[in-house]
């Protein structure tokens, strides 16, 4: 009798998936980040910008921000590139990422600096050459990362921007990229709010992945293909994402309890975006890259978070976890 009772109890404890989502896990790549960014080589200047045209080599030093786009080799690439991702009507992503290219030093014809894009910070070293009308820079990344490659860009004298190409050393899905970057300095502004003008909807790729059960044995490229076909899921967010700022004031239970999963997620990650965090997570990256004010400058911002922000992150995480576990299940939290 006793064994039957104990077996029954054990059985009950193991059936919790019926009342809650046991796999619910809230990802937070900032707090879980174990790779510490090497801040010695970061020279992101946090001061207002003095925009002047490029005349001498030294004028190129600084931060350059813009879109790191895939290179279109033909018209077909432009219209029906298989690498593009479409999620429902009116939403597509041409695989462009926002990049911040930092030119730190120019000594003689030696150039050094680093770039931050898609949660990846890489240093580069190369040569600069000058002609009558422009400067040409060719610089290599170290080569020990799958996504390392060569930057090749020029800056016309009297111009305000730099233009160029990037080519990967190894064979990867997007072998070549193009970019046109302009000067932009990063300044942390706790009052920064989401802009409605440069708004791009947040898409929950994971939800698509789960619902269509992505086979495990796919290569990375096939996996991308899979995402492309199954990412038609949107996270619903309300107008609250424009109103609530989790960097300026400590949020209360009343502020957050009626927020949807999408609201909570965006409000929390907005804290990281304000600090110039470069997102590895694709949906978040695409979402924040679209914000005009956003610049990816750091891959580790744990130390930059204020006390208010830390408290709010914990509160938001708690509600996100609860929403994932119980919102659409029989049990309630």
């Amino acid at each position: 009798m006793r064994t039957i009772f104990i077996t029954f109890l054990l059985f009950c404890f193991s059936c919790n998936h019926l009342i809650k989502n046991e796999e619910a896990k809230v990802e937070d790549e900032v707090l879980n980040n174990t790779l510490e960014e090497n801040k010695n080589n970061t020279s992101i200047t946090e001061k207002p910008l003095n925009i002047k045209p490029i005349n001498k080599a030294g004028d190129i030093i600084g931060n350059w921000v813009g879109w790191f786009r895939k290179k279109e080799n033909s018209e077909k690439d432009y219209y029906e590139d298989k690498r593009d991702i479409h999620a429902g009507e009116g939403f597509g992503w041409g695989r462009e990422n926002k990049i911040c290219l930092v030119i730190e030093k120019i000594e003689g014809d030696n150039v050094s600096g680093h770039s931050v894009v898609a949660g990846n910070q890489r240093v580069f070293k190369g040569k600069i050459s000058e002609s009558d009308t422009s400067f040409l820079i060719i610089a290599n990344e170290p080569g020990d990362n799958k996504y390392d490659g060569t930057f090749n860009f020029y800056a016309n004298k009297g111009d305000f921007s730099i233009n160029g190409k990037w080519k990967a050393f190894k064979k990867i899905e997007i072998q070549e990229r193009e970019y046109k970057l302009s000067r932009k300095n990063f300044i942390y502004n706790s009052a920064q709010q989401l802009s409605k003008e440069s708004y791009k909807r947040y898409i929950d790729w994971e939800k698509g992945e789960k619902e269509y059960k992505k086979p495990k044995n796919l290569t990375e490229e096939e996996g991308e293909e899979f995402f492309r076909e199954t990412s038609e899921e949107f996270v619903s967010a309300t107008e609250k994402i424009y109103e609530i700022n989790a960097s300026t004031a400590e949020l209360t239970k009343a502020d957050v309890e009626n927020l949807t999963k999408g609201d909570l997620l965006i409000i929390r990650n907005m804290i990281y975006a304000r600090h110039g965090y470069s997102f590895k997570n694709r949906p978040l990256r695409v979402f924040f890259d679209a914000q005009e004010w956003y610049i990816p400058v750091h891959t580790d911002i744990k130390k930059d978070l204020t006390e208010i922000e830390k408290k709010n992150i914990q509160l938001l995480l708690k509600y996100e976890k609860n929403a994932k576990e119980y919102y659409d299940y029989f049990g309630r939290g």
Partner: protein
Amino acid sequence: MGAGLLIFIYLLLLISLQYIPLRNDVAFLILKENEIKNIHYQIAFFTHVYTSWFVIFFGFFQFWKTLRKGYKKLHLCFGYIYISLILCLAGPSGLVMSVYANGGLIAKTSFILLSILWLYFTYKAYIAIREKNFALHEKYMLRSYALTLSAVSLRLFKMILANTLQLPPMDMYKIVAWSSWIFNLIIAEIYIRRKFPELTTSPTAP
């Protein structure tokens, strides 16, 4: 229908078991951090969690004719457990918790009303059976159990709404806080009026 209800009763058991061993930091309590610090809320919460399941479980058998007619002693025994658990433990603790309910004044009012009606109907059913008024006892027991079952309908409605309308969580909670027990009570009243048609005839009629 009985079998379907048994499944839900089983799910409610799973929900209650989340709090064994006694823990302050799981499930519902994660969002009740401030309230659970108070000793009176702790007592109310754990009393409610550990007793309510037995209320719904023992109540389940009481409407079953075979048990009522053939095993009167068992019906009596289960009935004592049901009534005393509600009147002494689950009901008062539910009332204390409703004062602290999520969802603001709207949800609090609903839960307070639910707790009071639950205690009232159960008490009336008890008095009726003490006076051997079987029909009245049955009517009040139907009402009492309808409110007991709001534990199921609350969660079921929430699940349905979350999977269809996807409303913000607290808006949804306010809706289910009211609809869960009112819906059950309406069903119970309709059933009572059908089973005891004398209620609908006017007492002044000849």
